[in-house]
């Protein structure tokens, strides 16, 4: 995964592939804020999602600190969601945010950080952590699928978690 600074620089230089990378990197994050944070559903969530990336495309040159790309996108997403909610109610734009929003956004930020850190791990670590924590596979199944002794899986998971923690703390 490219660094935020690198990604922003490539986008501003007009590299079309960089825009694809930016959308790919942040699409789930933006959609999660729309759907989980603001409870936007179906077409509303999709429209808000499109609006966010249109605004990002049009305003990226106003971003002062490329390292703050993610919070900048998050802030823009929040504004777009509030506008859409207000538009649905035929009211003036509102700053009243849903209950529990901050906690949801914190969880999403944490999930995003874990995802970024996971991307820096080896293929084997990504695979083993995904199988145990996301797919609920047993040690025996993981061992059989990856051709590893079942008795070593728990220790491998611990080592991969230690590497993940190092990346998160870096």
């Amino acid at each position, binding site marked *: 995964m490219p660094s935020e600074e690198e990604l922003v620089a490539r986008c501003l230089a007009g590299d079309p592939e960089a825009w694809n990378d930016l959308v790919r990197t942040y699409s789930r994050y933006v959609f999660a804020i729309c759907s989980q944070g603001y409870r936007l559903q179906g077409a509303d969530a999709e429209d808000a999602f499109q609006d966010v990336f249109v605004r990002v495309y049009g305003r990226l040159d106003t971003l002062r600190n490329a390292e703050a790309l993610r919070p900048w996108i998050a802030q823009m997403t929040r504004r777009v969601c509030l506008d859409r909610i207000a538009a649905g109610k035929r009211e003036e734009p509102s700053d009243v945010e849903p209950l529990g929003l901050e906690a949801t956004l914190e969880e999403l930020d944490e999930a995003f950080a874990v995802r970024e850190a996971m991307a820096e791990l080896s293929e084997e670590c990504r695979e083993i952590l995904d199988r145990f924590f996301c797919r609920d596979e047993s040690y025996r199944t993981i061992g059989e699928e990856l051709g590893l002794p079942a008795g070593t899986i*728990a220790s491998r998971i*611990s080592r991969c978690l230690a590497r993940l923690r190092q990346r998160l703390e870096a």
Partner: protein
Amino acid sequence: MSSQPPDPTRGAGYAAGRTAAAAARLVADVARASSETWPDARGVVAQANALADRLEVLAEANADVFAAALVALADPSADLAQHMQRAAALPLEIAEASSDVASLAVVVADRCDGLVRADAAGAAALAAGAASASAHLVRANLTVKPDDPRLQQALRAADDARYSASRAFEAGV
């Protein structure tokens, strides 16, 4: 002491799942207590808690499926076979997750502070009991024949868990 009668529809699968979940929390506690001297302990805590969460969900799901199977047994119009298939799948998952708890307890018993080693061994024994009970439920299911791969899988999980418990008892000796 509670005067509530036990709920007969929750069954042994639920009890096995809850028991193994409690064993997993114990494994997490023992590993956490040893984290100052054992660098991998935090990773073991995370795995033990994940197994406990998984087993708690499986226990609840098993109670629901078991209750539905009991209703179907009394209702001639119900699709009994489908209910019984579901009722075999969950104890198998509980047996495998319980076996993993026992296996993790061995890792902890080998590396933990000696003062809490007996707790790790106790957790392995509890998990092995849960795996055996769950394997028995798979065997007792009306749709499972002796050569059914699900039964072989459940029995192997129970055997592995018993072996893990015996190793945990020997740890530090």
